[in-house]
């Protein structure tokens, strides 16, 4: 028993300092976001200030923030739909293709996820404007983002589908289902938690993206969240720091909540092909 207690003590002793260091920036952002303009530059006022929601009001009523939120959500939603349509069948097929071919194709597709946007944005910026005539349109992002969400989603889905026993499908086949029918009626319904995980992480990859968004989009009303806040809230003459802090916290907290809720599933899928 004493050893168990010691284990716990060690766990706390390691975890708590890390929690403080990693989460402190968010604590300080939250404090700043509630401060009245006059007290912003005084760090000594941690607790003793008059909290105000004025900064949140400013953000929502006097900037394009709501528009950027809407843009990011729209792009996220469209990319999630495209990604699922392409990655679901592919992930399933690669998980079930036994032997070397399936495995090496899976690994190959995963490796394309590692090709960074910073290597591709120069040629893509030209292709987008010259051939697709999509410069400064949200659709330019919807077209390009699947380049990294699809390999990522296929990899996760492969991991999930591998955990579904083959016998379940065989039973459906014996009962007279076609292979495609077994896929739609048996496999997809029991993979819903896995699919939901893919939806969440794909959406957050899209919301996080910065390089393509800053290259393709040039007008304020078409910006996404990650580009709108740094370019239009920062480069303005007035540095409304509390408003900016609010703008950072609003998307971050919900994202962290869903990450935490789906973390175990994410780990299972992400490592499904590698660790067994």
């Amino acid at each position, binding site marked *: 028993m004493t050893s168990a207690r010691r284990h716990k003590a060690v766990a706390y002793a390691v975890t708590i300092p890390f929690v403080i260091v990693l989460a402190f*920036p968010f604590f300080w952002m939250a404090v700043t976001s509630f401060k009245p303009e006059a007290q912003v530059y005084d760090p000594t006022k941690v607790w003793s200030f008059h909290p105000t929601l004025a900064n949140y009001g400013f953000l929502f009523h006097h900037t394009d923030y709501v528009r950027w939120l809407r843009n990011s959500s729209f792009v996220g939603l469209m990319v999630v739909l495209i990604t699922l349509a392409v990655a679901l069948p592919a992930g399933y097929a690669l998980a079930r293709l036994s032997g070397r071919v399936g495995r090496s194709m899976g690994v190959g597709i995963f490796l394309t996820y590692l090709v960074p946007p910073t290597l591709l944005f120069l040629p893509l910026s030209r292709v987008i404007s010259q051939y697709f005539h999509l410069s400064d349109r949200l659709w330019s992002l919807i077209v390009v983002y699947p380049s990294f969400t699809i390999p990522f989603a296929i990899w996760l889905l492969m991991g999930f589908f591998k955990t579904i026993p083959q016998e379940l499908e065989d039973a459906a086949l014996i009962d007279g289902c076609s292979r495609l029918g077994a896929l739609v009626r048996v496999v997809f319904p029991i993979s819903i938690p896995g699919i939901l995980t893919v939806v969440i992480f794909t959406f957050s990859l899209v919301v996080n993206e910065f390089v393509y968004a800053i290259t393709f989009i040039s007008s304020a009303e078409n910006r996404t969240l990650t580009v709108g806040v740094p370019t239009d809230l920062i480069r303005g003459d007035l540095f409304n720091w509390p408003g900016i802090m609010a703008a*950072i916290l609003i998307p971050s907290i919900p*994202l962290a909540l869903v990450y935490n809720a789906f973390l175990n599933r994410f780990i299972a899928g992400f490592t499904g092909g590698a*660790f067994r």
Partner: protein
Amino acid sequence: MMGVVAAAQGSRRNRLRYVMERRGFLATLLVSPAVLVIAALVGAPLVLAAYLSFTDAQAGSLTGRWVGLANFRHAVHDPIFRGALWHTFLFTVISQIVVIVCAGLLAHALVRKFRGRWICRFFILLPWAAPIALTAIGFLWFYDPQASIFNWFLIKLHLVDPQHLPNWLGTPKAAMSSIITVQAWRTIPFATVIFIAGISSIPEEVDDAAAMDGATGLRKFWFVSLPLQLPIALVAILFGIIFTATDMIVPFILTNGGPFNSTQVLTTYAFQTGINAGNIGEGAAIALFMLPVLAVVVIGMLVFARRAEVT
């Protein structure tokens, strides 16, 4: 393809049904859209990037005069580019050493069950879950020359002289350490997650067997736990390298290469040359210097995949 032709002739519906039930055909049908999309969105731009780097293409066009290796030669003789190579190296290596040590420690603590683990995990995941382009702006504020919260701590701890406060992003050395700190901060959670995955994949029998053989404490750690975790550490390092060496968000937002190009990395320099200055060909050549990093990581991943297959 033979199957398709055969299905087109003969009694159509039955043939088609037969073909659809064949595993190979169905698999090809299901995978090919993904392969096509990836080829178009990753493969083609990659080839195009390589092509552009041999031309003098300017903003507004996708073609240029073939200039051979001139862009690369120009880059190699450019002091800013050489600086960028060196800074990319420093930025990546230092931040990832910090990340691996911290994530290893943290993961071992987090796999244990203790009260409040959920909320601890929530706080630890925050830097990873929050969009880095946004949190980097937060750091712009924490490093603010007039109101830096870090300076306030340092003054309280009597580590700096209030008359000579460090200007975190305004002086070359401090700027480099500042961006490395932020990069390490945002990578630790993801590396921790990979470590947790790896640790939980080690079967409990190993622990029991080690105990049976009398291996405890440091000996067990050195001879049993560490070798088993080496592949996991390798995977975390590979991800860390690729996501740091090829990422431009943190340096772009915090310093944009400044002051005096002291934090210029490959990605920010490629952006400035290719987009801001409009020399697409030269920008592409600079960005292509990331390929060796990518190659090393890919080979590492393949070795890992092979090992996982064998065991």
